[in-house]
């Protein structure tokens, strides 16, 4: 192989890697442009204000975001109420209390939980949890927001536990010893030293879990009843933004207002996840300053 050939091979690979790198950015930008372009097409026909204040989603006539947004927020909120305390307590238990056998079973078990496909979780919701809910609360239909919240909590838990546990585990032993050295109990050390020190990581954990819950589609589509009525509580059947896009995208005629409207929904979803990220980053930074 002469040197000319070697230079050529070198260059070829350089361009190949460059191409791979740019392709990623290209895809990202492409998706963003597509979202914006189609949303603009939608907002030309439907006033943005009507969209964000509309209380009915009925794509032949009404394009109101609110019932879908309320559904998404309700089910996510419910999931977080369940998953955050459970997740953080489990993470604390694994990292600070569990020993030997318990720990060696618990950690892989939790990782396994995250390997369950969402369609299986949805299935579990239909055949186990939803009948359970209707039996306990005496409802005719258990396919509701509560059912979705429980399932989303199950799905968000592995993420929350794993990330929070890493953060708690990373708190240096030296500052825990300093706390014990002053006469602190295990509980005060946990509450006032370990948890605050692990806060940025715990926020990240919650944020990732929340992102998982908001973006989840299949489970909520299967388990929450898909009702377009405005939700009134955890016993209402709901239809989230994700489920709406998934259900309607397959049937909508190309290039119609309805079609563009689904992109506007996707844009809203994107904005929500992005603001959660930004907010969480800010909180984490403010606390990180002390470390």
């Amino acid at each position, binding site marked *: 192989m002469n040197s000319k050939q070697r230079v050529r091979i070198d260059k070829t690979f350089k361009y190949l890697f460059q191409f791979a790198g740019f392709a990623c950015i290209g895809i990202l930008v492409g998706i963003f442009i597509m979202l914006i372009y189609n949303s603009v097409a939608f907002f030309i026909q439907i006033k943005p204000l009507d969209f964000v204040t509309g209380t009915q989603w009925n794509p032949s006539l009404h394009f109101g975001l609110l019932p879908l947004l309320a559904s998404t927020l309700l089910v996510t909120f419910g999931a977080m109420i369940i998953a955050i305390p459970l997740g953080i307590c489990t993470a604390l238990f694994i990292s600070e209390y569990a020993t030997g056998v318990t720990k060696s079973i618990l950690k892989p078990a939790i990782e396994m939980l995250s390997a369950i496909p969402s369609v299986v979780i949805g299935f579990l919701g239909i055949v186990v949890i939803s009948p359970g809910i209707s039996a306990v609360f005496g409802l005719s239909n258990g396919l509701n927001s509560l059912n979705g919240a429980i399932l989303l909590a199950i799905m968000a838990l592995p993420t929350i536990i794993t990330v929070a546990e890493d953060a708690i585990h990373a708190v240096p032993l030296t500052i825990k010893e300093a706390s014990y*050295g002053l*006469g602190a109990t295990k509980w005060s050390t946990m509450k006032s030293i370990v948890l605050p020190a692990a806060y940025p990581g715990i926020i990240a954990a919650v944020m990732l879990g929340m992102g998982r819950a908001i973006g989840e589609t299949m489970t909520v589509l299967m388990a929450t009843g898909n009702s377009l009525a405005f939700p009134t509580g955890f016993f209402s059947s709901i239809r989230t933004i994700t489920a709406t896009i998934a259900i309607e995208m397959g049937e909508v005629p190309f290039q119609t207002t309805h079609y563009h409207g689904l992109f506007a929904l996707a844009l809203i979803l994107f904005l929500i996840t992005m603001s959660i990220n930004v907010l969480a980053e800010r909180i984490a930074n403010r606390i990180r300053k002390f470390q």
Partner: protein
Amino acid sequence: MQTTKIQTKTIIDISDLNLFFGEKQVLKNIGMNIAEKMVTALIGPSGCGKSTLLRTLNRMHDLSPDAHISGDISIDGQNIFHKNIIVNNLRKKVGMVFQKPNPFPKSIYDNIAYGLQINGFSKEKIPQIVEESLHKSYLFEEVKDKLHEPATRLSGGQQQRLCIARTIAVKPDIILMDEPCSALDPLSTLKIEELILDLKKDYTIVIVTHNMQQAVRVSDFTAFMYLGELVEFDETIKIFNNPEKQLTKNYINGHFG
């Protein structure tokens, strides 16, 4: 070894102390009386068990499940291994300053207030005690305008003085220091040594040090340890001028270590 010229009262009485980490014996038959309101230095080559001995005195080894201890340690006549001893109270009474400055990831003020809160000091008294402790640890002038800034922004020497401040804030009788200057520059070291000499008016201090000049400068008594055993324990002047044991003499003269 009880033929000391300084008149003292024993506050810590260690006898027949053995400590194992798993199968490995780290402390062998240690017996010594530590005098009240004096500075006692622990010296010896690294790995000889100085930190381990120090950490038995506030039962820090409770945190390591593979540490097994036999023998007795009495503080103020009370056996610290007795089942009626509340370990949190013991640790309040026997404070500890660590090798590397380890402030909490909190503000300067909260670093000190934390120990007061967990030990049930009344809320109204906390600001005053925080300030006193900062004065006593020669830190107040340097930090008075930034009490609510993160403690981690302080220099290493300042952080270590803050750690001393938070230790004395809870009003211990005894302060254990494990090579408190080993991570500091000479100037900060000097400041801490000055502080130690000042603190011994009110506290009993046990200090591990790697630095023999430091032992000479700050301590009244020196214990020389080697391979888990207490080789010689006497007044510092005696240890450094006229030790009984050849091993001590060799170590002092820098033949090993």
